[in-house]
């Protein structure tokens, strides 16, 4: 039976439907919002990732919208059985308004509808309880979209170039300041260095780049060291030639020989001297050429050598004339190099080369020649070997130290008594 739209029945049923809609909306949102909050968190993480990769954000938004729709449909389907009907809304209205079942009764046709047409459902929404996680998720998403991120460049590009390249640059700059070096030989290193520096910055610290840089640096240092050593040898030879005692033919020949040997060492280095200095040294490389040089010419030549040597030595970080020894720069533990430990190289006393100095304790003269022996350099004395009567224990490793180092004798793993016994046996 159709009832007029303004009848109490219609009013009550409209209100009942409104109550049911409100409850169903609350029920749906209560179940849906936690999922949406989780989706917002996932979207925040995705947004950060996309921004890091310089990607577009609109696909994220589209995916979130699609996922939201999917979640909505899924929850609608899942919660359908729990949704309130209009009858449930009527029951709520009659409970909330103390109508004592009159609405249900009226709907069943047992009694008439109540005349008071306005009623409250007596529900108070507590949306923050359900929407709180969603708001938190949205806030995190907004932060993920708004917070400035570090740029890719700074993330992927190293700030400083490798140490080997820097050191090679410094060495090259130092060598370029030396006037008597051939520019072409330096250009070769410069080109190699430029080639390394021109590689993409993100590849600076790749294995191959690091290896190439360290190889170039080692090559430059080796060449410079070889040149410095040769220059030191040449300087020493010229110094011998300038001594008044070098009057004999043999001594002049020896000095010329040393000079030639130093010239050969220079030729072996990739760093070449300027043509003027190299030619002067070539001319002095014979006894006759050496004799033709006056003392002042020798002094000037040595001065030029010293300038070059000092410049190269500055680049290497060692004073000119000091031997490189075994512990060369660039070697060290873990690099396969035999280490002799700290201190000066053998045959050096303090910071000075014994072959060119005035001597130590007055016992070493500057006219010492190349066949000088150890005994000429360090003080020794001959004594009769003394037998150590103390039994030697093998458990000490056969290398037990004794108190007087100068009185050292060769230690035997047997005592004298045992040795005499062995001798008697083998006789």
């Amino acid at each position: 039976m159709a009832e007029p739209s303004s009848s109490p029945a219609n009013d009550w049923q409209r209100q009942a439907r409104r109550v049911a809609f409100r409850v169903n909306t609350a029920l749906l949102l209560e179940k849906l919002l936690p999922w949406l909050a989780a989706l917002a968190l996932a979207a925040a993480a995705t947004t950060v990732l996309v921004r890091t990769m310089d990607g577009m954000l609109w696909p994220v938004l589209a995916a979130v919208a699609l996922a939201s729709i999917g979640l909505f449909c899924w929850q609608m389907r899942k919660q359908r059985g729990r949704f309130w009907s209009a009858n449930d809304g009527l029951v709520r209205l009659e409970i909330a308004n103390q109508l004592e079942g009159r609405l249900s009764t009226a709907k069943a046709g047992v009694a008439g509808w109540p005349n008071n047409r306005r009623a409250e459902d007596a529900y108070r929404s507590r949306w923050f309880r359900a929407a709180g996680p969603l708001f938190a998720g949205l806030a995190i998403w907004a932060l993920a979209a708004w917070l400035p991120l570090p740029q890719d460049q700074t993330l992927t590009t190293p700030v400083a170039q490798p140490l080997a390249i820097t050191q090679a640059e410094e060495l090259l700059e130092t060598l370029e300041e030396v006037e008597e070096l051939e520019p072409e030989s330096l250009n070769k290193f410069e080109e190699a260095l430029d080639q390394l520096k021109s590689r993409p910055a993100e590849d600076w610290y790749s294995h191959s780049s690091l290896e190439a840089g360290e190889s170039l640096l080692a090559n430059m240092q080796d060449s410079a060291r070889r040149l410095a050593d040769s220059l030191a040898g040449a300087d020493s030879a010229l110094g011998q030639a300038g001594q008044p005692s070098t009057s004999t033919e043999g001594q002049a020949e020896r000095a010329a020989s040393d000079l030639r040997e130093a010239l050969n060492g220079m030729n072996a280095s990739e760093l070449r001297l300027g043509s003027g200095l190299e030619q002067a040294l070539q001319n002095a490389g014979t006894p006759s050429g050496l004799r033709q040089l006056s003392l002042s010419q020798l002094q000037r030549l040595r001065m030029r050598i010293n300038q070059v040597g000092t410049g190269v030595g500055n680049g290497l970080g060692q004073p000119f004339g000091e031997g490189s020894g075994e512990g060369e720069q660039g070697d060290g533990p873990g690099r396969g190099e035999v280490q002799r430990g700290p201190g000066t190289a053998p045959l050096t006393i303090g910071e000075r080369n014994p072959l060119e100095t005035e001597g130590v304790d007055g016992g070493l003269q500057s006219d010492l020649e190349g066949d000088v022996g150890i005994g000429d350099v360090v003080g020794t004395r001959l004594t009769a070997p003394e037998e150590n009567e103390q039994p030697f224990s093998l458990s000490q490793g056969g290398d037990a130290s004794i108190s007087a180092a100068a009185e050292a004798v060769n230690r035997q793993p047997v005592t004298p008594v045992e040795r005499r016994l062995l001798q008697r046996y083998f006789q």
Partner: protein
Amino acid sequence: MNHPAVDPPEENEVHEAKTVLDRLRQQIGGVIFGQETLIDSVITGLVAQGHLLLEGLPGLGKTELVRTLSKALGLVSNRVQFTPDLLPGDITGNPMLEENDGRRQFVFQRGPIFCNILLADEINRASPKTQSALLEAMQERRVTVMGESHELPAPFFVLATQNPIELEGTYPLPEAQLDRFLFKLEVTRNPVEVLERIVDQRHMGADPVVEQVLSREEAEHLVALARRVYLPPTVGNYIARLVNATHPGESEAASLVKFGASPRAALALAAASRARALQFGRPNAAIEDVQALAPFVLTHRILLEYTARIEGVTSRDVVGRLLEEVSTQSKETPKTLESLKV
């Protein structure tokens, strides 16, 4: 639209019934002072055709209530004081050997149970055998002696009392018999104002004057009318969920319950709700009726665990918690919607 299975009462019928019941309430209220809730519950129980168990201290007017009720209704009432040596035949009646015209035969001598309102005073003092003599009478409203059944007069109500003190030498009613009582009502002591009124208006040994409000036929008509009161499906659903929730595991409130209420409890609750609706002049029962009557209907039907007694939890506490826990709505209410107190 759900149509009721039986013809619901018309508005004028409901109105007349309410008028009569109001008069009955006034008559009883003129004798029993300060027990309005008890009087309403007794009237509800009678209209629902249920038996009532009254529990209270001596001297609170339990017997007076029953006597007044029988006078107001114009019904025959008997009073039986239950004692430990009371035999079933003392209540139901005994076959007596009679000689008539030279022939001896057993003739059934009716006991005090053959009345409209039986006041079983201190029912828990009788032995279980005697108590069980009432089972058939209360449920089927008849008595069977020596294989012969005797119908009880209609209407038939048992109003039993039991004393919560002096429990030594008593026999607690078995659950089967408790289940046959529609209500268990507690008769509480009167406040000072009521006592003062009793002292002023009543005299020791003088019976109060009670007018008959209803005839027996009118009482039967009221009972029949109550059965026609419309019980909406939502109310029936609420009763079912409430009774189901009394069982352990079905609700949090029933965690201390050993045995819950029976289906008879659900029927009793529905019948009582209908009667209460009629008493309040409504053609339909409502959830409010169920909530008002549930403590009287369910309390004596719930058997608690021993731990509940240790914790001091009573059946009435459990029913109160059940009423708070079981929602009036058959479907889930979202937690984001807070129900305001109405």
